[in-house]
Structures are given as C-alpha cells and as structure tokens.
C-alpha cells in the first residue's frame, strides 16, 4: 500500500471573510466554523479562537488536537468509519495543512487536565505550542450526559478539521513524502537481508473518556489485529481519550505517529518495516491476557525479528505493556518499549506499576510527576472557570498572579509514549 503525503506548510492563521490557504497563511471564516459546530443540537453555543506560537496564551482544558488533512486521490476519506464511509484508506494522495491544528476544549466532567501554553516553560513541553491552532469552545445543552458530550465534542473536532483540510484539496504541496508498505512476500524478496520489524501499537480502551476508535470501532471490542501504517496517516485511528493529558495519544499523534515515521525512515536501509499490530488496553485481566497473546501470536506469524511497543496512559496499561513484552520476547523476538514514568515528585518512586526482566530495552519519555512552574499568561482560552479545578484541584496549584505550580502530567502531550518528544529521564 502506497500513500503520498503532500505538506502545505502553514506559518500563520487568521480570521477572514473567506476560508482559504494563501502563501502559507490559513484564513478561517469564524462564522462558518461556528455554524458547523452548531449543526449538532447537543451544543447551544460555540466560540472559536486562535492561538499562535509565542503568544501569551493558555488553552485549557484540552480534549483533542487534530491535524487538518484531505484525501486528494485514492479511496475513502479522512476519519473513515467516523465521518467518512468505512472505506479502506491509506493509499493514493493526501494533503496535510502542516503547522496547523484544531484544538477542542471542554469540561465533560468536573475535573479536567490538559494545558497547552503557547509560550514560556509549558510551551517547551508540549509539541502543540509550535502550531497555529484553531481552538473550539463548545457549550453543551444543559441536560447533555457525559457520554454524549464527549462524543459530540469529538465529532465537532473532526468536522472542523475536515472543513479546514478541504481547503488544501487543490493546492500544490510545498513538500511531498511517499510511504509504501509492500505485501509480505514482496517485502521479503525486496530486502532479504534486512531484519524484519513490526510496530506493536497499544491503544487506550478502558471505558468512558478512555477510548480509541479504529475505523469507527471501539478498540476495546476488538481483538488485536493488523493495520497498514499508511491507514493510520489517513485517520483510521482516532482518539476519544480525554484522561491523562501528558501521555494520551491525541488524534494529532495518531495521524503523525512518530514511530511509524521513524521506522519508515529506516525502511529498506537498515530494516524492513513489515507493518503495525494494533492491540488494546482493557480493564478486564482476561482481556489483557488475550490481547497480549494475540500480539505475540501475530508478531510470530509475521516472522519478525524485532518490534517496538508503545504504551498509552498510566498504571493499568503498564501491565499490558509488560505482558506484550514478555510474550513477544518469549518467542525470540527482540522488543523495545516506549513508556513514560511516574517516579513521584522527587523522582525516587518505582516508575512503572509493573516490570519484568525481559523489558531490558526501554525508552523513557520522562517523569510525569516532576513539578514545573508555569508563568501567568495574558489570555486563557477555553473554559476559564475550570482553571482552578484543573490546575489547583489535583496535581498542581494555581497562584494569585495566574502562575501555576503543577506536575508535568497536566500538560497535553508532555510525556507522549509514542516518543513524540525529546523529553526523557535518567
């Protein structure tokens, strides 16, 4: 399967009468976006704001971050099974508004984490401070239940991202990258001497606010399965995970999965990137056993020499991570794990809730409990009234001048376990 990604580089975002992309600037008609959100009768009001790199802006509480993309050629559309039809995506051409993102905010439940600072210390920890963000603030109708609220917000994000993505459909990309995965037989013939590598991609699937969807299916209801890496780039996997801001995979992370990109970078040179095994992180222990049995079985079936396993979330998924590692290593397949740590504020506690000797190659995305100081911002976008709860309520404290002392875990994407960032710990 072959996909060509065309990047249209976005350097600025502005409101305008007409939505369009011109000379690297994304112009957005605010009213059209609002109207799009309010198509959903679960929302009674909506607002849209801009947040650009370097501005003294704090966005909170962040639910999801989504990159605008559009299918230019090939079957299906972005976010199949969610917005577009359940067509197999991942081939043809897709255009990307690189440098732009849609950020959804919302207080689905009374406690919420998820901060994006566009400048200062916090900005160094979140990758989204470097993007030109269109922030959606959606007010639900009074009686809306948490489940429906989460879903409505998720869909508002997708719709607006697709609306912006569509602006890129007929543009000529500034840069093009091609990704291709041959079938198993061709792959072996093409690279007979290279080690065969797969990626075991763990998806959060624990229930309300902890879900991930694959072609529209709730991952917790799926057995471990396989997917082409390019399908992921077309939005086959989306995030409904609103918990654990620092190490959840936003939809942006899924679209830009760095492990997939970095394996492709070595594909055909030092390794043969065979494909992606997606597996879930359920609450029921028998599910964990079953899913990890299947990851190991599929890795064995593919005849790979090595895998990279990425985790999503905290605590309970550590058990899935270690089960995957143990069972895959037991098949003689070498593993590298990517995780983050909860080593306590002083860094002296045991980092993971589970461990095993076979996990001898681990990449750390940093200690999420480490305390940082966030300076006050001139402007807060999102739901200002929850500032106190989010920042002061649990893992941090809000000071009178608007500065925040908090654990790193409140920052969206700070310790992402796909290895999206440079942050680490020793």
């Amino acid at each position: 399967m072959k996909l060509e990604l065309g990047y249209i580089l976005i350097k600025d975002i502005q409101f305008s009468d007409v939505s369009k992309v011109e000379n690297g600037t994304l112009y957005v008609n605010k009213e059209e976006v609002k109207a799009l959100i309010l198509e959903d009768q679960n929302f009674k009001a909506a607002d849209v704001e801009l947040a650009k790199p370097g501005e003294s802006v704090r966005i909170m509480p962040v639910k999801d971050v989504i990159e605008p993309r559009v299918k230019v050629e090939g079957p299906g559309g972005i976010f199949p099974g969610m917005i577009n039809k359940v067509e197999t995506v991942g081939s043809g051409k897709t255009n990307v508004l690189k440098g732009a993102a849609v950020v959804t905010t919302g207080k689905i439940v009374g406690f919420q984490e998820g901060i994006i600072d566009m400048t200062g210390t916090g900005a160094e920890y979140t990758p989204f401070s470097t993007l030109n963000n269109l922030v959606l603030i959606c007010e639900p109708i009074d009686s809306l239940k948490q489940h429906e609220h989460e879903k409505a917000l998720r869909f508002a994000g997708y719709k607006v991202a697709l609306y912006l993505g569509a602006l890129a459909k007929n543009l000529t990309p500034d840069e093009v990258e091609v990704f291709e995965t041959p079938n198993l037989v061709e792959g072996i013939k093409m690279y007979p001497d290279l080690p065969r590598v797969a990626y075991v991609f763990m998806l959060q699937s624990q229930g309300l606010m902890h879900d991930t969807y694959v072609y529209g299916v709730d991952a917790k209801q799926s057995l471990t399965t396989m997917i082409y890496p390019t399908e992921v780039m077309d939005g086959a996997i989306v995030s409904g995970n609103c918990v654990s801001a620092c190490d959840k995979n936003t939809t942006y992370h899924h679209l830009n999965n760095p492990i997939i990109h970095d394996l492709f970078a070595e594909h055909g040179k030092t390794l043969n990137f065979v494909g992606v095994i997606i597996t879930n992180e359920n609450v029921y222990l028998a599910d964990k056993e079953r899913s990890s049995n299947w990851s190991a079985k599929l890795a064995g079936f593919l005849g790979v020499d090595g895998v990279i396993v990425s985790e999503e979330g905290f605590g309970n998924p550590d058990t899935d991570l270690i089960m995957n590692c143990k069972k895959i290593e037991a098949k003689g397949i070498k593993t590298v794990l990517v995780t983050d740590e909860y080593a306590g504020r002083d860094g002296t506690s045991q980092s993971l809730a589970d461990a095993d000797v076979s996990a001898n190659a681990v990449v750390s995305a940093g200690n999420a409990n480490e305390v940082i100081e966030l300076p006050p911002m001139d402007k807060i976008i999102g739901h200002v009234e929850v500032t106190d709860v989010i920042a002061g309520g649990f893992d941090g404290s809000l000071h009178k001048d608007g500065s925040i002392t908090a654990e790193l875990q409140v920052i969206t994407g700070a310790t992402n376990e796909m290895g999206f960032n440079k942050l680490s710990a020793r």
Partner: protein
Amino acid sequence: MIITNNDWVLNKYKDIYNIVYINGTFKDVLIAVRDKLHIGHELLTHPLGSSVKPSETPFKSVMITDKKNNTSIDSIYMIENAIITYDKFNKDKLLSISDKVIEDLKLIDLTVLQSALNI
C-alpha cells in the same frame, strides 16, 4: 465479587453481584482486595482500573473471583504494585472536591467497571 467504595456501583449491582461495600478510601479498597487475594480469591480487573490517577479520584471498584483457589502470586504481585503506585501520588487535593466532581468521578469508576462487565 466487586469490592467498591462507590455507592453508585453498590446501588446498581447489589441485586446482581456479590458486593463488598467499603466505607472508606481508595486505599482501603485496595487493602480489602489484598486481604481477599491472600485467602485465595483472584483479581479479575486491574486494581488501577484506569488512567484517572489515585490523586484525582477517591473512588475505586475492583472485581475479583467469588471462588477461592490457591493463592495467585500474579494477583498478589499486581495488588502490591497498585498499593505502591497509590502511595506515590500526592492526594492532598482530594479533600476539596465539589459535589459535581464527585458525581463525575463515581460515573467514571462505574463505567470503567462496566467496560469489564459487558464483555
């Protein structure tokens, strides 16, 4: 058997499942689970049910087997690690949460448990 300190779980399932209601903290639930594991019950759900951290919620529901077998070392190992993990989070702020938030947290705990029950 469900060990819980969440009255929503108690009220919803008391007629269907064997429920041990703990009038206490998240940690009290973990300790009660540990004591059951020591006499031969086995864990069915992970004691750190979700990515909502122990610093963020006072509610916890854990499912274990009704039947007693030989003590499961894996279960003991998991609950001990869960207790260690619980202890390392700073829980000062849990005291000041509002009623609305308490309801939300009870709901999350309930739905996480449901996700295990429905399969």
